[in-house]
């Protein structure tokens, strides 16, 4: 029980600090913080906003789990951005040009996305185990290369078309290839059907980590590579598997938006969910439930920020608050870790006397 409280303290402190920091900024610019936060919560409580929050959270959840799989092994998958963008672009091309019978289309599209994501992450994995290149650097490079590759694929001379708003993108996905949504009562827009896939992924991630040999090896390498090697774990192979798995999950990030709302991949497709995923994985301590809460919090901030412009405060204050959360949560982890170490040392010291 106490262990649970210990792990919760850091994120709670971080969120509280960020609210405090946000309040100070609001005060400086002449807005009443309590009133503002109440308005945000009010706005977020409408069925439409709740739908938007669930939808964003679904996207964020995929991204954060992708990052968390890497984190468990001390691998930094900075490349989720590139992996999901490329995966979504390829998926959108397949979905836009080919019609499948029944629900086969959705299955094929999801499989393709995961494969492309895994393949793109696989390059970084290969570079790491075969050539010793840090995955942080290689995935950053691969992000940019993915952008170029997508721009090439989307060129009207290659596979792209001009969409209705005169933006270059993929052909509109036919109804059969779309992922059906579910509506909240009285909400004008549906919740992404892929939210159920996100929940399933959460269970799968939990099961994999805690109930399988693979998950045990993964955590063992993360905690101590040398101990893992000593107990017979092939670290290189684990690195490749973890990176492939992370990339495969990353491949799902863009699909809720693609198959549930936008139905086309354009050059303006949102491109930064990967970094959001890093923040949320961190906030949720790589735990499937923690990540869910983190994703919902992030989505709540994003959606409720929309009301802020009307109150005279730029809504980008939310981005500042999100940044403060990330920074203070890592500092809080570090401080609590040191306190724990000191307590342990004290306990060992007094036991020796």
């Amino acid at each position, binding site marked *: 029980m106490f262990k649970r409280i210990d792990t919760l303290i850091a994120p709670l402190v971080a969120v509280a600090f960020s609210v405090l920091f946000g309040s100070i900024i609001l005060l400086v610019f002449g807005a009443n913080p309590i009133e503002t936060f109440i308005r945000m919560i009010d706005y977020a409580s409408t069925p439409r906003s709740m739908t938007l929050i669930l939808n964003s959270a679904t996207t964020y959840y995929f991204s954060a789990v992708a990052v968390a799989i890497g984190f468990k092994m001390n691998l930094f998958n900075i490349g989720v951005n590139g992996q999901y963008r490329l995966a979504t672009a390829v998926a959108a091309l397949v979905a836009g040009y080919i019609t499948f019978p029944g629900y086969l289309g959705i299955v094929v599209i999801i499989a393709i996305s995961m494969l492309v994501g895994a393949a793109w992450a696989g390059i970084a994995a290969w570079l790491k185990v075969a*050539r010793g290149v840090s995955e942080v650097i290689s995935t950053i490079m691969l992000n940019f290369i993915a952008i170029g590759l997508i*721009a090439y694929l989307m060129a009207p001379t290659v596979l792209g078309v001009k969409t209705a708003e005169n933006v270059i993108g993929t052909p509109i996905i036919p109804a059969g290839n779309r992922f059906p949504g579910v509506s909240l009562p009285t909400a004008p827009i549906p919740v992404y059907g892929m939210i159920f896939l996100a929940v399933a992924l959460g269970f799968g991630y939990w099961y994999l980590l805690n109930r399988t040999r693979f998950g045990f090896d993964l955590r063992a390498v993360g905690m101590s590579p040398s101990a893992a090697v000593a107990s017979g774990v092939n670290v290189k192979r684990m690195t490749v598997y973890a990176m492939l798995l992370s990339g495969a999950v990353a491949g799902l990030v863009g699909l809720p938006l693609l198959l549930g709302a936008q139905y086309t991949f354009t050059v303006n497709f949102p491109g930064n969910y990967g970094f959001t995923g890093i*923040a949320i994985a961190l906030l949720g301590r790589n735990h499937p439930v923690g990540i869910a809460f983190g994703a919902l919090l992030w989505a709540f901030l994003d959606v409720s920020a929309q009301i802020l412009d009307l109150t005279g405060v730029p809504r980008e*204050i939310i*981005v500042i608050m*999100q*940044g403060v959360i*990330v920074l203070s949560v890592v*500092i809080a982890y570090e401080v609590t870790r040191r306190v724990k170490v000191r307590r342990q040392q004290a306990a060992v010291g007094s036991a020796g006397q």
Partner: protein
Amino acid sequence: MTAVLSILKSGASRKVKFLALFIAVLATLSLVRMWADVLDLTSRGTISAALGLAVPIGLAGLGGLWAERAGVVNIGLEGMMILGTFGAGWLGWQYGPWAGLLGAILFGLLGGGIFALATVTFGVDQIIAGTAINILGLGFAQFFAKIAFSKAPGGGPTQSPSISALPTFTFDRLSDPLVSLHGKGYFIISELAGLISGVFFRLSILTVFSAGLFAATAFILWRTPFGLRLRSVGENPHAADSLGVNVYLYKYIGVLTSGVMAALGGAFLAIAASGVYREGQTGGRGFIGLATMIFGNWRPGGTAIGAGLFGYIDALRLRDANGTAMRAIVLLGALALIVLAILAIRKKRYQVVFGLGITAAVLISWFLLTTALPREVALVAPYLATLLVLAFASQRLRPPAADGIPYRKGESK
């Protein structure tokens, strides 16, 4: 080509080696220019644009260098750059470009200060702290830009009013005759003429200033006791500590300087390149800067060359109307790979030779089979180059030994 290689292998002084390499690059450019028939490859406009595009990337790379030499990996360069563009725009439109520079420096110190607090004082993971700085820098600039510029004359929520320009120099007497010499298309000589005329064409004072920063960095970090201490902190902080070096202080200096350099890169974008602060102006250049630093083997000269390469390819892309220059880039890339392959043959690393050879063959056939290539090719080229360097020349790269490892006084690993 082999002559150049043997010079590079020999014990000749660094100046001679550099000169040999320089001539080899010019000759390659010249050959590609003739074969692909693209005169714009080394025209005054291209070189001048390349220089302008290289400076912000190079400054970001220099920022990365200062932090990493002190043992702190700085992924937050992008956020610090954004802070710099905002600082430059905010003070710049009100009090002129020099005040804008000061504004960028102040905001760079802010970004570097927060980053140093997290990574040095609290010793948190540097990659995560960098990610946080990127989010914070972006949010901070967007938030305050809306407040500062929305009601300003000629400004808007995402753009500042214009900043008055800094002086630029054009040496017409030197530049103009060289342009006509370039047009003649002589082997190597035309390339040299284009290069010189481009450098002395509308040369921004900030470019000169930035070149000075590179020289100063090289001197300070490698020729002074202060620099030795700062680098020792990045190589082995515990040993440095045992010799009485204040590790935390030097790490702070490194990271703060890093913030200032990155922010100055942002200031260049706002003041010299566009004359306004604009949202999204940095466009990932902080990350590109990081790439140039790695490409440049954590050294100022190499970083400058890397930035030049990125800037050059970007300039070609922007000026390329019909795709012929992109085609030339593919050929250039193929030639570069062949050189690398020759080097690898000498080292008997046949696996690498095979990989490079296949890639080069693919590129050359691509070149031969097409008449024009889409601009996106250029988008990819520099990153691919960096990735190839990392993959096939990583044994030549030498990052600081304690790079990225949080340091706690009195706690060894």
